[in-house]
């Protein structure tokens, strides 16, 4: 169980009615990674316990790509 605490300013324009966490979880999903929000600014990673190191590497790469897609505000 890992929580990724996001900078509340990361998303300059969150989707209407959505928190920063929900907006990022949605963007991660569009890039092929399912995660879950925890509160307004935290994205939770709760992978199955059978996860392999290569899956983690892939998830980190999707996270990297997704975070970079948000222009700095």
């Amino acid at each position, binding site marked *: 169980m890992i*929580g*990724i605490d996001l900078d509340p300013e990361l998303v300059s324009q969150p989707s209407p009615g959505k928190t920063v966490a929900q907006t990022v979880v949605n963007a991660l999903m569009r890039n092929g*990674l399912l995660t879950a929000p925890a*509160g307004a600014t935290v994205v*939770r990673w709760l992978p*199955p*316990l059978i996860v392999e190191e290569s899956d983690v590497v892939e998830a980190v790469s999707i996270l990297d790509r997704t975070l970079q897609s948000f222009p700095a505000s």
Partner: protein
Amino acid sequence: MNESSTKQLFADFVVPCYGRYDVVLTRGEGVRVWDDAGHQYLDFGAGIAVSTLGHAHPKMMQALSGQASALIHTSNLYYTEPQGSLAKRLVELVGSPGKVFFSNSGAEANEALFKVARKYGNDCRSTPPEIGTKVEILTFESSFHGRTMAGISATGQEKVKIGFAPLLSGFRHLPFNDLAAVEKAVSGQTVGILLEAFQGESGIYPASREFLIGLRRLCDEHQILLMFDEIQCGLGRVGNWCGWKAIAPEVMPDAVSWAKGIGGGFPLGATWLRAKPMQKSDGSQTQLCDLLQPGSHGTTYGGTPLACAVSLAVLQTIEDDHLVERAAKLGRFATGQIKKFEG
């Protein structure tokens, strides 16, 4: 059925109490799931910490189909072997003598904690005029303990309570990791303290080692039950079979609730109660795990042979494949990778 018609069914016929992401999932295998357009996803949500063995794990499928063809459900009017075996396994996993009550969800697993704490307050801490007064349970801000009326009353987040007044009385929320606040709040009415060793629903907040040790000491001093909600953080999720042992292995609680990962996706809740000796107000001797006598609590589905056989297979696979150790190792690896994005 295409995506738009599935969503239309939800719009027309499903109570809209969930904020759903815009995708229709159709199948899964291992750590991956697919949507109805054939897109593949890496599933790092696992159905909110539930799909311990991922999707369509052969050991789980084998247990499901094998037990389903033998005996799915009997009610608790009868004995069934898988329930007894799973109870033994869970007691061994906690590492202290006790007994287990089975239910179907985390909310129900916590409900058993609330009821046993009240029973303890009323049967062991009260004389007749006091019945119903010594029942207070302390919980913590930012906690999450389920969506039933008792669950939202216990949960230390205002957002889950809005619109549902009157809530159940007897709960107080204190700042997490603040032992002085707990010391101050404990009174003659307090019978239980409930917490998640790792709060995981409004951010991820681990308890401090000093906090857990201090709570155990306070509970011993004031004859209060120390109860751990292990629904999300238990059974390997934080790299330890018992979430609290990742922080303070020497602390032994009086009661524990599990759900989520315990069934790998098959609904199951369980509540462990310690074999803690106690005296009832009438002078008779008992122990915490025997307070709930026939007729005092129950659920029709709780601990069905099917649910328990599946859970036994899930726990055995976690052990055989060293998945708790793997969770600890990969958790450290992932955290290291993610920290690169800091700042």
